[in-house]
């Protein structure tokens, strides 16, 4: 289990100019006595400036653990045990978040990188008004007085299109609808104008009409503010709506990253292909007279993070697997210059 070089200094050569964040073979494990849950075990992904990278994967694939690793907010006994998380600061310097000191991380959280959590009540404190929470976030990072902070907080609520912002500032989270709370969380995350927003399933709990409003809002904010977004979701429909690029996770690894059109037009990993094929689509799966065709589920189930297969984690379920796949974990290969896949046999796809 090789540790990354503990180097908190600059890595100027390691990131191309248009890249805000690059995870390089990130490995985050939960170590419980002699057992290790390898929740994240080889995540390589790239977020480009001003763009949205959607991280998509099924439950337990390691999306939230990846997000929390970037924020360095892992709960015990979770620990980054390998890999790098190169991040380009607003001043141009590059740091490795995986090894940065806690003190420097505190200055980065909220100001450089902000996160919307999957569990809404992780971000919003039920005991404080919405206004107080946004003001506190602003004053944590910037030397402004209460009055100024309140003005800024009010402006944030306007930015996320909350009607009657003055009244809302003095309300508690439980007095708001789900959609309204999600807007408040976005306002809170954007209060200090971060360069990178990590949004972990920000619309999953919402109704489709409210989800459409929030996706629209996030697209508009990105255009106006120019922030980069790492958008975590398990919904490929949402991916198609919001992403510029997509990283697909399976059993703790990114198995494929590509621009969104390339990924949907020609997935280069059998898992991605299988996922797209099993979403019901009445146009494809129902004949003209209305009779249904059976869906094509991926056989079997996801392996446990406590006992990952030795080779490709997808091999036991993969229609293309050959003996080599079962012993050798695939490297991240270029299917085309912008299209990466962890599949030995991607040329067959």
């Amino acid at each position, binding site marked *: 289990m090789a540790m990354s070089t503990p180097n908190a200094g600059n890595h100027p050569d390691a990131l191309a100019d248009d890249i805000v964040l690059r995870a390089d073979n990130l490995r985050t494990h939960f170590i419980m006595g002699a057992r290790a849950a390898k929740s994240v075990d080889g995540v390589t992904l790239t977020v480009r400036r001003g763009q949205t990278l959607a991280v998509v994967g*099924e*439950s337990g694939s390691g999306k939230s653990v990846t997000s929390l690793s970037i924020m360095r907010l892992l709960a015990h006994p979770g620990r980054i045990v390998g890999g790098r998380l190169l991040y380009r600061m607003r001043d141009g310097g590059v740091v490795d978040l995986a090894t940065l000191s806690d003190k420097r991380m505190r200055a980065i959280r909220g100001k450089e990188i902000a996160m919307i959590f999957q569990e809404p009540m992780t971000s919003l404190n039920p005991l404080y008004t919405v206004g107080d929470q946004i003001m506190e976030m602003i004053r944590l990072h910037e030397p402004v007085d209460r009055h100024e902070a309140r003005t800024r907080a009010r402006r944030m609520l306007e930015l996320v299109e909350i009607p009657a912002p003055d009244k809302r500032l003095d309300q508690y989270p439980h007095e708001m609808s789900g959609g309204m709370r999600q807007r408040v969380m976005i306002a809170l995350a954007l209060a200090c104008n971060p360069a990178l927003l990590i949004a972990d399933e920000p619309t999953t709990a919402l109704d489709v*009409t409210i989800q*459409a409003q929030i996706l629209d809002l996030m697209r508009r904010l990105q255009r106006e503010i120019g922030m980069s977004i790492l958008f975590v979701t398990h919904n490929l429909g949402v991916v198609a709506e919001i992403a510029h690029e997509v990283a697909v996770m399976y059993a703790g690894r990114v198995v494929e990253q590509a621009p969104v059109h390339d990924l949907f037009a020609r997935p280069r990993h059998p898992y991605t292909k299988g996922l797209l094929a*099993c979403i019901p689509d*009445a146009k494809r799966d129902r004949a003209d007279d209305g009779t249904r065709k*059976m*869906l094509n*589920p991926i056989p079997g189930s996801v392996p446990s993070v406590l006992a990952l297969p030795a080779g490709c984690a997808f091999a036991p379920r993969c229609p293309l697997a050959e003996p080599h796949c079962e012993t050798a974990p695939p490297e991240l290969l270029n299917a085309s210059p912008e299209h990466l896949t962890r599949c030995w046999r991607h040329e067959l796809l």
Partner: protein
Amino acid sequence: MTDTTQTTQQPDAADILLSVRGLSKQFSTGSGPVKAVEDISFDVRRGQIVGIVGESGSGKTTAGRCLLRLVEPSSGEAIFDGVDLFSLPEKALRAYRRRLQIIFQDPYSSLNPRMRVRDIIGEAIDTHGLAKGAARQARIEELLTRVGLSPEHARRYPNEFSGGQRQRVGIARALAVEPELIIADEPVSALDVSVQAQVLNLIQELQRELGLTMIFISHDLTVVEYLCDEIVVLYLGRIMEQGPARSVYANPRHPYTRALLATAPVPDPTVRRERVILQGDIPSPLNPPSGCVFRTRCPHAIAACAETVPTRETVGSGHSVACIRQAELVETYQD
């Protein structure tokens, strides 16, 4: 399912297994009465899957539970095989409880964690005295095989299963009593897509091979379009539109249905759709809008929409819409 105004003319009325008429349910809460379901009518034909869709709080679960009298309806009728379930005394209801079963959304909380799978399924068999001893054992094994599990799973506890497997156990439990109608309340919503596909295939096999009739509650329009024969669209406890799924999806006539279909994300980045984004939130059911309950978010609302509750008008075979402007709006829809 047919439009209510046509029921009397239906030549194949014998096909109708369940006929719901004017179902309403009010809850009294500390803050006042909540009209969770208001004057719902629809029919369910033998062998069909009827989808009930709508956003959170639209009354889908309440409607489903009223049909089983897990929640007592405030008014209405539910004629099942000639008998009104709502007016049956508790004792007579027991016989019908076997013929209608429910599958719950949450495969995690709907199974007792301290019971082995064989006891979970066995309990349903015992309640209705359907089999004993070796026959009971054989039936449990048959059911497990039927839902794609193996007989050796009978000894295990729910926490030893994945979400999809637990949902299979829930389905096996419902099937144990040989029901004629299954009400499935979001049975695949908690599952990942690859597991969801497995369970949707199972549901279809059951429909084909056992001739099951099902009410399938969901907020996922893509799944409903694929799976269901008929569809009922609810908003704030009322039916906005209903009809054969193909007709409603090909030709949605209610502004709410149209907005729902336009905003449901589809897994295809090349699709550029007419974006009708509904403004605002779903109103509180404690204080629903007068007239058409959808009017506060409807892009086509006019003053008259606040005046009267729209009645359902037939727009096609079995396809009906509750919107006073539906006829004039058709011309503005460019499909």
